[in-house]
């Protein structure tokens, strides 16, 4: 289960001397604003929104890679700030970042390494890597170096990595972004299976309205860092989701307005 309350994230310019690392100061940007959300066990919850809506920011806060500026969040009851170590054992994040692998190692070697980081002993890591490679249909390419993988294969490898430790909560950032329709359909079916058969909670960020409507129980429409509404595709259908999404997109983006108390 995932719960957030009044969650906010503002990116500010670093103070001196840390500002020496950047090129110039920028205005504060509010990536998330007062976001309150509850995703139940076994639910697939979609985050739908345009670029810069705050979808990845929310996933990273839940994966403990970002600290919230206001409010808070819990995963399976563990606080993402105060109990970050516990949260990291409960969640797995699959990003669309292709660079997040060791390109000179094979898919299998990568997965065995990350299984080791999850605490698996040598043989258990090997067995687990084999199992998740099978789930994402990459067994026949397991011993090729990741540098030779296609973008879609790396995407599937990223999902395989997220499944290594069998976490109760999966955070998927655009999991089908670079996949062809057949491969995307397979990944979507796999996500549904993980939720339905294994009661995993899945939070999935996507730009693709059709995908969200096809696999999510509920969809949160995120615009300019705020949760503008939640729709249930089961009740309104894809057209209903589309209509609601476009209506909510019209609301003005005011994130670049001055932040109270900041220059």
């Amino acid at each position, binding site marked *: 289960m995932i719960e957030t309350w009044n969650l906010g994230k503002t990116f500010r310019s670093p103070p001196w001397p840390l500002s020496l690392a950047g090129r110039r100061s920028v205005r504060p940007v509010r990536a998330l604003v007062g976001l309150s959300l509850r995703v139940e066990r076994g639910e697939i919850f979609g985050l739908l929104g345009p670029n810069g809506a705050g979808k990845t920011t929310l996933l990273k806060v839940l994966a403990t*890679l*970002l600290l919230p500026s206001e409010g808070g969040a819990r995963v399976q009851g563990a606080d993402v700030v105060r109990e970050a*170590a516990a949260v990291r054992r409960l969640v797995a994040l699959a990003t669309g970042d292709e*660079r997040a692998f060791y390109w000179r*190692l094979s898919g299998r070697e990568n997965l065995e390494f990350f299984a080791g980081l999850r*605490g698996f002993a040598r043989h258990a890591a090997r067995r687990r890597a084999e199992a998740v490679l099978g789930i994402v249909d990459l067994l026949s390419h397991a011993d090729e170096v990741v540098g030779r993988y296609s973008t879609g294969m790396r995407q599937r490898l990223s999902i395989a990595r997220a499944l290594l430790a069998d976490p109760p909560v999966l955070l998927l950032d655009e999991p089908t972004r670079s996949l062809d329709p057949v491969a995307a359909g397979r990944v979507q079916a796999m996500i549904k299976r993980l939720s339905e058969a294994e009661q995993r909670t899945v939070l999935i960020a996507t730009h693709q309205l059709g995908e969200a409507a096809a696999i999510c129980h509920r969809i949160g429409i995120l615009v300019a860092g705020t949760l503008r509404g939640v729709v249930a595709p089961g009740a309104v259908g894809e057209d209903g989701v589309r209509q609601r999404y476009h209506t909510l997109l019209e609301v003005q983006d005011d994130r670049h307005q001055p932040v109270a108390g900041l220059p």
Partner: protein
Amino acid sequence: MTAINQLRAFLKRDYLLASYSRLAFAWQVFTVVLVAPTLYYLGRLIRPAASPHLVPYGGDYFAFVILGVALFGLLAAVMAAAAAAVRQEQMIGTLEVLMSSPVSLPTLAAGLSLWNILLTAGQTVLYLLLGVVVFGIDLARVNFVSVAVVLVLGMATFAAMGIFAAAFVLLYKHPDPITSMFAGLSALLGGVFYPPSVLPPVLRTLAEFIPLTHALRAIRLAVLEGYGLGALRREVLILLLFSAVLLPLAAYLFRWAVQYTKQSGTLGAY
């Protein structure tokens, strides 16, 4: 057990990555094979009578300098390993995924450094083997307990400097200047190639504030003259003080740097 599995995973990964560039490994061996005889022939220039500064260490310049070079190499590697590894993970884009794994920060710092430290430790052993087997250094008087204690304290002190450097890399996304500056200063003042007693008084005083000075002095006396911990208590206490002060400070700064990058959203930036 989990930490052991995590460290093993880091070691296997680094072994596999290193096996793709065997040339680098061969170069490390070649360097030792090249440097050791150079130091030996340089040592033949300097006779005990010509250098009273070497008398406390038994008078043999080759034994003095090869111990200095070997230990300095090891401590410098301990210092540079974590920062270099953090920078590499930043550049290839894997730092965020490592940080989202359930690995504690001390295990992460150790795991990132371990392979390079072990490789350099192998180089250190090779220096000593060549020194003993080929060039006849007399190690009959080694006090192993003193060597072990001084090594642990020296490595702890240099690891602390390395963690400072890793924090710098996290914050500034830039190869750190701390390790090269500190290594350069240590080589100049710490007695790698000559005893600090040859330095002018001002530099000699400065050398006392460099951990390497005490680590090298203690190791040489323990290896070449068989000094026990009692005779080395001054050096041991100074190294203990350095590590007791620097390690917690470095751990605090590294933890703060991680939290800061999570706050500013720059953990994955490079």
